[in-house]
């Protein structure tokens, strides 16, 4: 029996319709990454939103795993660190 993952594995090959090949276009990636940030709720301190609907079908289980962590509350030590950055400016 083929597993759920294999079924998903067969569906869709291109993330976000990406088609180009060749060397990594760093500047282009930076520019388009902004859209990805917004899509994932990572922009400008917005509340993180699960992004299970984005990307190719084969990646759905991976996105669920990723989104589980994204939706967790911020651990106290990280919140403390942010506060310290604020107060010290360093």
């Amino acid at each position, binding site marked *: *029996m*083929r*597993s*759920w*993952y*294999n079924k998903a*594995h067969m569906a869709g090959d*291109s*993330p*976000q319709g*990406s088609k*180009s*090949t*060749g*060397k*990594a*276009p*760093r500047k*282009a*990636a*930076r*520019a*388009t*990454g*902004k859209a*990805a*940030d917004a899509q*994932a709720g*990572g*922009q*400008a*301190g*917005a509340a*993180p939103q*699960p992004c*299970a609907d984005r*990307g*190719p079908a*084969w*990646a*759905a*289980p*991976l*996105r*669920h*795993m*990723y989104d*589980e*962590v*994204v*939706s967790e509350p*911020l*651990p106290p*030590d*990280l919140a403390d*660190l*942010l506060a310290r*950055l*604020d107060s010290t400016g*360093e």
Partner: protein
Amino acid sequence: MSPPDPFKHELTGAIPHLRAFARGLCGRPDMADDLVQETLLKAWAARERFIPGTSIRAWTFTILRNLYLTDRRRSRNQGEYDELVAERTLITPAGQEGPLHLADLRRALMQLPPERREALLLVGAGGFSYEEAAAICGCAVGTIKSRVGRARAALATMIEQGVEGPREGGQAGDAIMADLARVSERAS
């Protein structure tokens, strides 16, 4: 009251994604959060180099990845191995049936070579394009495509055959599917 620092505002928004990426990379929540802390400090120290209007997620993921690779090299020199990390990842308290099934996926991920694991996490889980993932990893787009393709194939094989052996072929995959369905139901 002074207006909020835009850089810090964006950095804060990236933290949940940094945590998810880090956990996928190293498999251990405690180690992942340490990695995120280090990343935040590095990013803060280098904030003058961040170009406003570009992707802070891609920028910080690159920092985190480099820190992870440095830590990994150090661990290898100290005689620690990924197998140990993978084994610890699998420990799930009794009675937590759902997480146990998701742990199958995490376990399979941890068995992938690191460069394939990170490619799969960036493209499959993080939603980056191949081009963005290539920029983060500092390699060609074709290399990322190849790594993602091989990682998908390996992951599918591992899950179908049972990641650790005791589970029969499709059972692990079916269990994960059922678990994910429950997660989706809860979310909707």
